[in-house]
């Protein structure tokens, strides 16, 4: 049963199993284990980023394609929900419509970009996605009548998913719509994550890895490499859009900074590399570590910077705003020395 759920792709390391179980239990019981608004926000963000990073891993780790448009697809899903909720009106139908439209738009756009770039050279893809994603980001901030521009959009979602909706108490925790909303996100992310795990362990996933290892050889054996790459791109984009829709349902707000920015793209890259490319479980660890670090490490850096006051250069280097510097260094070192990331290390050290 468990084996079927995981598509036969077990963690293959005791420590990794323990960590994954820890994450699963913490997230599954987050409202009860860590009561409070901020920790619930963190838990929901972690859920969504696990899914987002896992969908990126399908592309980067399993197919060997670098995309800089993953936030664009994420944003398409988010804006889909936002626009549908704004124009169709508050309701479940709007959420479904927005989610579907977002995922479909993402898949179609991925198909078009894929046809243009993957057909010639996989390396074009990285450059073209970067260009298209930034153009879309600029467009979104310019078309403010439609998108709210830099301010973004706030909208109303079904009352059952908001804090105003009360259900009663369980274990001393008041069950509100916000908690229902959390569980909607948790279970959707879990299901989609398991689906991705299924995809990478299917025959399709095996071909993807063969293409990644040696595209020339895969082509020679008779696989249409372009077809597999483009399909993976579309699938990855659609799942990213679904993650975006969930994010929009959770936040009840979308804006360029929360969904489309290049910073988030870098975050995703860091998460997938640090967690471990091509492992899916790496997405879980990468996202958990990163989101926690983002929320709590910056405070630590602030303390360190204060402690270093008076020393030359050190306070500037330790300034909480410079935390990307350290992540960048960590990123380069991981690519060099731990190309399989944390998961690869754990599995190797079994």
């Amino acid at each position, binding site marked *: 049963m468990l084996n079927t759920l995981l598509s036969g792709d077990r963690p293959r390391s005791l420590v990794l199993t323990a960590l994954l179980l820890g994450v699963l239990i913490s997230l599954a019981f987050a409202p009860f284990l860590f009561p409070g608004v901020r920790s619930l926000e963190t838990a929901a963000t972690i859920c969504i980023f696990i899914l987002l990073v896992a969908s990126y891993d399908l592309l980067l780790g399993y197919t060997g394609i670098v995309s800089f448009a993953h936030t664009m697809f994420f944003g398409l899903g988010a804006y889909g929900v936002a626009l549908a909720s704004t124009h169709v009106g508050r309701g479940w139908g709007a959420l479904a419509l927005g989610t579907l439209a977002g995922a479909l738009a993402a898949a179609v756009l991925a198909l078009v970009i894929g046809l243009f770039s993957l057909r010639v050279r996989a390396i074009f893809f990285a450059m073209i996605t970067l260009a298209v994603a930034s153009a879309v980001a600029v467009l979104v901030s310019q078309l403010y009548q439609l998108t709210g521009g830099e301010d973004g959009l706030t909208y109303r979602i079904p009352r059952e998913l908001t804090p105003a909706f009360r259900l009663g108490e369980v274990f001393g925790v008041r069950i509100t719509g916000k908690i229902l909303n959390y569980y909607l996100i948790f279970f959707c992310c879990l299901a989609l994550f398991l689906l991705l795990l299924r995809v990478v362990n299917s025959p399709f996933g095996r071909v993807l890895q063969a293409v990644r290892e040696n595209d020339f050889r895969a082509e020679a054996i008779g696989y249409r490499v372009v077809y597999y790459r483009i399909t993976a791109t579309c699938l990855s984009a659609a799942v990213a859009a679904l993650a975006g829709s969930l994010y929009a349902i959770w936040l009840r707000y979308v804006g360029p900074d929360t969904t489309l920015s290049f910073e988030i793209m870098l975050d995703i890259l860091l998460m997938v590399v640090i967690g471990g490319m091509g492992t899916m479980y790496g997405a879980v660890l990468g996202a958990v570590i990163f989101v926690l670090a983002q929320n709590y490490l910056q405070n630590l850096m602030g303390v360190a910077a204060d402690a270093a006051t008076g020393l030359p250069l050190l306070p500037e280097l330790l300034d909480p705003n410079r935390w990307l510097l350290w992540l960048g260094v960590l990123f380069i070192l991981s*690519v060099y020395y731990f190309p399989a990331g944390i998961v690869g290390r754990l599995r190797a050290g079994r």
Partner: protein
Amino acid sequence: MSVAPDHTPRMERLRPAERLGQAAPYLLVPVLVLLGWLAIGSPSSWLTLTVSGLAMGMMIFVMASGLTLVFGLMDVINFGHGAFISLGAFLGISVLLALPGWTAADSLALNLTAVLLAIAVAMVLTGLVGWGFERVIVRPVYGAHLKQILVTVGGLIVIEQLIHVIWGPDEIFLTRPEALKGAVTFAGAALEKYRILAVGFGLVIFVAMRLVLRRTKIGLIVRAGVQNGEMVETLGYRLRLVFIGVFIAGSALAGLGGVMWALYQEVITAGMGERMMILVFIVVIIGGLGSVEGAFIGALLVGLLQNYVAFLEPKLALVSNIGLMTAILMWRPQGMMPVVKAK
């Protein structure tokens, strides 16, 4: 490897259609200028826009030229190239800000000396940083595109953040030296002096680069290396040294582009290089990876189109470049003038 069947020489026997195909990329620029004239209507606005489009194109070309050669020569794609643009801008502008007496003086000689000094400092230092970047960041990941992209993006983040550490988190505003302020009027159109200078300067760089590539032995080695590096080594040339030289020169040119762009925009931020990279990538793709001429034409097209569209329909300026890229890739999937790899 099969050899084409032997027959009488094909030389001098290109059919008109083939000749047109070869010349087509060169014709695109005048065609676009003409289309701009038709669409804009007002000759003076058209002239102003054309000059600023050409100026922008020249600056993008300066930034893109090194990138395309580095790719062509060693199959290295450097996503960190934008960091050299930002770095060059900050270094050059620091020099200018340190010389207020020279830039504010009402003397063309002093003004230009200050600018040239700023350019020299920026180019030398970004070249040196480029050298280090090649050794530390790029060299360990030869032959692995995926790692190259990831690691050079990492390098981009680190350099950008270091710029913040050194120069502070805020953008820096500047004014151009006295002699480069203002505009001249020509045929009823106001043409900014600096833009005219930028066009001239970009042309000089392009011509100089072409001369080096066509008329010097090192240029021949670079062009041959872009096509077939193994054969260049077989003839006895150390391609690695040539590559390092090109990487340093490309970084220095990115730094130069950064200074030019800073004087154009009159404001610098650590993220400016990263934003410019989007246009640089479009230019390199539509020009054909590895082709300096292609990058030049591509850059002019992007600069002109961006300015024309910004005038006609401001919101579509950046999108128009994506449209241009799409159109050109539909026409020539490898870009306008791809370098034929003879392997």
